[in-house]
């Protein structure tokens, strides 16, 4: 089993790929700044269908999908040799990722409006990064 973070947040990518923070050790990153939040969720869902499990819940704690463009999903992914033996799909993860996709779609369609501008992007990247860092530290405990 290996660890993977799928993200569209460059701050997360930097922390994992370059900065060497200990809580992020031995974690792979799948970073693409052009992915939307929904793209990140869909990519995670596809991996869950192939046997990956969610480490963190895919939604943030307060900041809603129409209030930030960033999304990072933290997964445990079976290695190739484990997959060959056959892995089961984790139903908890399937339900959570599907609920999160439905909630994201809802809030992007049926709320007031997108509510951030470019000046806020560094702060939003930082908050997404800190949530993930809290999760990575929790996971290592």
């Amino acid at each position, binding site marked *: 089993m290996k660890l993977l973070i799928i993200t569209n947040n460059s701050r997360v990518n930097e922390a994992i790929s370059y900065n060497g923070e200990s809580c992020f050790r031995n974690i792979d990153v799948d970073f693409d700044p052009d992915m939307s939040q929904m793209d990140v969720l869909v990519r995670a869902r596809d991996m869950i269908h192939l046997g990956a499990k*969610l*480490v*963190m*819940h*895919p*939604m*943030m*704690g*307060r*900041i*809603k999908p129409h*209030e930030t463009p960033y999304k990072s999903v*933290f997964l445990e992914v079976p290695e190739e040799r484990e997959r060959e033996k056959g892995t089961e799909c984790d139903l*908890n993860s399937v339900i*959570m990722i599907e*609920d*999160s996709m*439905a*909630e994201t779609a*809802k*809030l992007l*369609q*049926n*709320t*007031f*409006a*997108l*509510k*951030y*501008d470019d000046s*806020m992007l560094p*702060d*939003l990247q*930082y*908050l997404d990064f*800190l*949530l993930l*860092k*809290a*999760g990575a530290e*929790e*996971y290592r405990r």
Partner: protein
Amino acid sequence: MNLELRKVQIKDIVFDTVDKIEDGVLHVDPKRLEELVLEDSRVKAVSFDIARPGESVRIVPVKDVIEPRAKLEGGEIFPGLFREDMQEAGNGITYCLKGMAVTSTGPIVGFQEGVIDMSGPCVDYTIYSSILHLCMIIEKQDYVDPHDHEEVVRLAGIKVAKTVAEIGFDVTEYETENMEWKPIGEKYAEFPDLPKVVYVYNCMAQGLLHDTYFYGRDAKALVPTMITPNEVMDGALISGNCVSPGSKTTTYMHQNNAVIRELLKIHGTEINFMGIVLNPLMTTLKEKFRDRMMTVREVKMLGADGVLISQEGFGNPTTDLMIVCQELENNGIKTVIITNEDAGVDGMSEPLPDSVQEANAIVTTGNSNATVMLPAMDKTIGILKEVERVCGGNVTSIQEDGRLLLEIHGIMGGHNLQGNTKLGAITI
């Protein structure tokens, strides 16, 4: 555990050169408070202002609202924040200045905080419009990073609230409330025929702007823990939360936790209120499932027949709420949830990001996405432009004529999740 709350009613606040309370009017020296806040070298500037109910005043962005409280005897108020050798909170004599709050404003990180109007339609949405506010406008030094910035503002608010409450020690007219909290066995034997009820108190523990502090320490380092109402009254819980002003549990909402208040009211007549389990809402699934197991175990150890859970946050915390409810119900413990809804502007969307069939008794505190038009106010304390960034506002919120179009969760306390709010649900 015995606590005497001495409640001093404050009718007005005025700035003066001396500190005193006379005929219910709080006289306070703003210079002294400024010096107190500037003791922290991370603060660049601070000033104070007063907002009264009925005035054409808007406070924005609000970070925290704190009721002034101080201890005459029996330990320290807000224990663990300023000293290491803390005692258990909830004993002795505590002074509370009622009808007012210390309210912190100034920029934080990214999202700014909520709105409080002292008149107009906002009054129908939040209890904060009906109390006096001693507003602290605080700015950090340029070098201070976001984590320290949050801490600077949080600690300054608490220090001011404590200092202001100490002015109340000389007041002889107050209302007294005695709170006695007995050991579990005694409580069990006292009302054997009444249904035993436990309160599961969810609190955010997820990172900057999403934290709660228990005895001054970050709740991320906590596992579900049995606590007492008396401790909560003495400020054992402090809010480190920002974002989603409508539902965030401010320090004021902890100090005046409406669920605890109501359970104490009917304790001994309708129910036997056995205790509180403080449940930190973590980010990883394995912590969520461990916290579920521990919360349910503690509830069972308290002998509960029924449980009330109050929610905090939105998104992944809804999963904690639902899995704890499910496990309690599966253990034969009847469970009621208090939560708000995010059902979209038109109220037609699925209101919760997670749900289980066992969650069959839910009290709602309203749809946070519903919009409200607030009239222009003559004066703003804080920075009006920040409305564009508050949760519930956006870049088109400020109308040409000065009115504000906001979602309800932009109003501080607009749908408080302990039910200390004016919104609710009725069957029609």
